[in-house]
């Protein structure tokens, strides 16, 4: 990895992140967290910061298709890798099915957990299109919501199952 040293002797590293299908090259310090590059450098503020210790899941993004806490990942560690954030879900102004389901099921209250919650749901439904309620609850166990009591969130995710198609 290419590095340059600034006047104060602090090293900076050249990284390329592939976010939501676009490539971004940035110069970051070693201690820059992925969540901060996304929010502060790329203006992708849909990803939220909550506990910043890997407990709450509000900063969840998909790294190579898998949900991770972007507050626990160094930007340099994400160099060259594919990242999907909440902003990458809608296609041509059309919301993703899971986003629609959150709206339809009143699964959003204050909304702070929603981005992370939806990213966890996206990863689950991509790898397992017909999850059980137990599997849904496990997939979002790392996403804390203090408003909804989870009932409508679980309902929203379950409504996106393949087996529910055309059942409206």
């Amino acid at each position: 990895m290419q590095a340059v040293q600034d006047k104060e002797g602090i090293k900076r590293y050249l990284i390329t992140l592939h976010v939501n299908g676009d490539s971004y090259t940035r110069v970051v310090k070693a201690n820059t967290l992925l969540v901060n590059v996304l929010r502060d450098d790329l203006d992708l503020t849909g990803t939220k910061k909550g506990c910043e210790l890997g407990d709450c899941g509000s900063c969840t993004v998909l790294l190579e298709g898998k949900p991770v806490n972007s507050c626990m990942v160094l930007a340099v560690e994400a160099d060259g890798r594919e990242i999907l954030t909440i902003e990458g879900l809608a296609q041509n102004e059309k919301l993703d099915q899971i986003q629609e389901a959150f709206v339809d099921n009143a699964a959003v209250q204050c909304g702070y957990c929603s981005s992370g919650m939806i990213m966890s749901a996206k990863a689950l439904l991509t790898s397992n299109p017909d999850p059980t309620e137990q599997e849904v609850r496990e997939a979002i166990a790392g996403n804390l919501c203090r408003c909804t009591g989870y009932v409508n969130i679980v309902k929203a995710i379950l409504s996106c199952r393949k087996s529910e198609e055309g059942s409206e």
Partner: protein
Amino acid sequence: MYLPDFDYHAAASVEEASNLLGSLGTEAKLIAGGTDVMRMMKEGTLALKSLISITRVKDLKSITHDQEKGVVIGALATHNEVMLSPVLQEKYMSVCETAHHMANNQIRNIGTIGGNIANAVPSADFLPILIALGAEITLQTSSGSRSMPLEDFFVGPRQSVIKQDEILTEIIIPEKGFSGSNYHKFGLRRSGALAVVGVAVAVTMEDNLCKDVRIALGAVAPTPVRVPEVEELLRGREISAALLEEAGQVAAANCRPIDDIRGSKEYRQDMVRVFTRRTLRKAIDAGHV
């Protein structure tokens, strides 16, 4: 929550990582998944000049079965990779279940089994089950390697016998002919909570006769511990409900947990009694399948 400044090195091989650890000295540390390192640095309990990443080192992730060695787990395998490994699901479902009950999905996608071991925290979930199964580990430097039983690795909380330039590369579970094994993590919540006590059992049954058994406890001492008193009690005996209750009592009497926010000493001891009995029962019953 920001991190202090440090340098970052992405090692391409074990040799390179070992050389960097050697030349940069004790102010440098490895980072694998970073779930522990990040947390400690953010909380201010770990200060370092350099982090050496090993996530780009190839061939440290695979989980394979070797006729001679047994099951070989690469240190960089994540908890979810352990959980979903077909080899482990066939040979040691108990290890997959252990991974499944750790942390949450996001952490399981980045946290590694090697980091869980090297971190040497007494409540770390992989330790009891791997010790019960008789796992060995390989520590490598740029000039050579050594292996040892996992149970000899730990010295105290966050302390192990690892040397500055050594890298944990693999965990090996040798074929010991166990008929069943099980780990019970007793935490205060189902997700994202550390173990209050952890009990692991590996047993070799012949009908109802206990031929051999290994029991390891987590979160009840400065390191994960075996309980030889219970193993001796059970070896060569016919299993009965009364014997399992006695085993629980002996386990409780022979561990020295601490009081902390997750539970008092007395509570932990009583939970050791209960979960030793139940975990033994599960491992024994698995043996009859």
